[in-house]
């Protein structure tokens, strides 16, 4: 069993890894302005005087890395949630994480909160807190009536929380002033222009933890795809696996949203595309989705920042414009 799987895993990871690394290396070379790479890497010029180096290292590189992190997190969280809920339409935002995050960010922006004492700007921190609050409520609801987790209740509670938080967002937004409303709207579109490494450093531990759990989850998710009862007979502690899947996917999504805002479609098209290419074994789908998600989001962001320069398009618009038609094609083609 191990040898063919091991070989397939190595080939798949190598191919998708090459794509991700290629994207990370190539994307910073292009931008809305043209810079001299020779000068950017000329370390004899002090960094404070070297505009090309600052554009490369402050504007482009963190942005590319943010695309990689957010893309990988959202794509793999999508795989996990589709496996957990056994529903191909599940996305990282289905269970209310993004709406909770949006509510948190919006409260921070509207009321001008600043968590300077935390060392992080308010909006990302508040969005993370909001997403975790939403996760807590949804989990409590899903547990309330069953001994384990009911995925149906999870799904319904998540969808309801999304609607409820969206209503709260509209309610608070109605009282926000014009500039704040605009900033909220901009936040909701998703934006990877983080212009420093701090958001990445803050989100990285969360990403590592959730990726570690994802790695453990690959086999349980394969068993879960047979149905919870079957999985139980194969010796899987279903409740534990479901709980781990739910919390790790939520953590990954919360971290991704706190960095780049709720960027849509990555979490749904990447898993399906990868499954089309490599089959449905989660041990291969998970790493491949993470790597491909990273490459895809970097590419979308590259389009967003260059196509209409100096005006930049929101990256969420690009992912939806590419993702929407692609997903429809996928739906039609399968029949």
């Amino acid at each position, binding site marked *: 069993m191990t040898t063919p799987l091991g070989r397939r895993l190595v080939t798949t990871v190598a191919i998708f890894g090459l794509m991700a690394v290629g994207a990370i290396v190539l994307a910073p070379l292009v931008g809305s302005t043209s810079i001299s790479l020779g000068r950017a890497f000329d370390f004899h010029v002090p960094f404070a005087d070297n*505009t090309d180096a*600052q*554009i490369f290292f402050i504007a482009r590189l963190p942005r590319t890395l943010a695309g990689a992190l957010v893309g990988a997190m959202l794509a793999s969280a999508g795989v996990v949630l589709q496996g957990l809920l056994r529903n191909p339409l599940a996305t990282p935002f289905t269970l209310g994480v993004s709406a909770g995050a949006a509510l948190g960010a919006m409260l921070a922006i509207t009321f001008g909160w600043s968590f300077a004492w935390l060392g992080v700007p308010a909006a990302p921190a508040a969005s993370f807190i909001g997403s975790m609050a939403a996760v807590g409520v949804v989990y409590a609801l899903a547990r309330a009536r069953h001994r384990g987790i009911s995925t149906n209740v999870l799904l319904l509670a998540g969808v309801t929380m999304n609607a409820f938080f969206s209503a709260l967002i509209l309610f608070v937004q*109605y009282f926000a002033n014009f500039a704040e409303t*605009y900033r909220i709207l*901009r*936040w909701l579109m998703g934006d990877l222009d983080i212009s420093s490494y701090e958001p990445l450093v803050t989100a990285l531990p969360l990403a590592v933890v959730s990726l570690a759990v994802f790695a453990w989850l690959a086999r349980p998710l394969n068993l879960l795809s047979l149905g919870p009862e079957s999985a139980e007979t194969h010796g899987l502690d279903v409740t534990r696996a479901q709980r781990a899947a739910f919390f790790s996917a939520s953590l990954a999504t919360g971290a991704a949203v706190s960095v780049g805002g709720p960027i849509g479609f990555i979490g749904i098209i990447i898993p399906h595309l990868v499954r089309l290419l490599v089959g449905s074994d989660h041990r291969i789908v998970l790493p491949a989705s993470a790597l491909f998600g990273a490459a895809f989001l970097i590419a979308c962001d590259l389009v967003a920042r260059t196509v209409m320069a100096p005006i930049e398009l929101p990256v969420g618009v690009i992912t939806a414009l590419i993702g929407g038609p692609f997903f429809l094609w996928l739906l039609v083609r399968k029949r």
Partner: protein
Amino acid sequence: MTKDIAARSSGLAACRAEARRVRWREGVWLGAILLTVLVTFVCFVVFVLEPSARSSERPTRIVSLIPAVTEMLFAIGAGPQVVAVSSFDHFPPQVRRLPSVGALVDPDVERILSLRPDLVAIYGSQTDLRTQLGRARIPVYVYRHAGLADVPATIRELGARVGHADAAAALARGIETRLAAIRARNAGRPHPRTLIVMGREALSLRGIYASGGVGFIHDMVEAAGGTNVFADVKKEAVQATAELILSRRPDVIIELRADPLSPDMLKREMNVWSAWNSVPAVKNRHVHLIADDRTVVPGPRVAEGVEIIANRLDKAR
């Protein structure tokens, strides 16, 4: 059987004819009464209600939904005529005592109507409100957000509308004179390339939106003797990425805010910029955060706002 039916139907026809005559007579009476009521009503509206609704000569109950217009009204001596303002009005201090009736997106139509205004100043985009006020036959003054040159023009127009034409003309002339003086003072001097930041996320350099080459904020900075680095973008606001700002290399960064900041927060917000030290403005300490509503309200204090900006720009000349 058929005869019987015929006789009955002829009797029925006579009855019907009689009924028709009665109905016709009643109809005439009813029509006459209705006509009288209608004529009375129209006369009432035209001769009793209309004069007060149409007294655009000198409105005495003005509602202003625009802070800039409120300031203008008070500055030209029409303050006592103002009965309500928007929820964003803070200046002059007297407006705090007046009821607030919403703003651009949430005008409280019911409260506005209950105040029985004879002039309501609204934004050009508030078309629904305009229709509603039109239905209530309340005159409106339609304000349009435009360039710096439109501020004195708006003051003159407003003054003529509310019966303070002379004071308005004097105020407008004063603003034009002051702006001309600032322009003359900076005529032969260098115009530093300036980034005008109108908003960003708190304590970070994310989500910066800057003034493009259109609108009164752009005009103010150009009048103050600066050159907007985004003058080529023909939009009011530019979502400026890190790359864009680093590559434009502004000599001065001016951040404008309407609400005051504590000295501690001001210092913290200024420090945020130090991450981008290849930008000449940051390197040479020409970053200015101006939390003063005179620089963001296109009202009668706009020349003061331009002077404030010009003084900051002087440090980089």
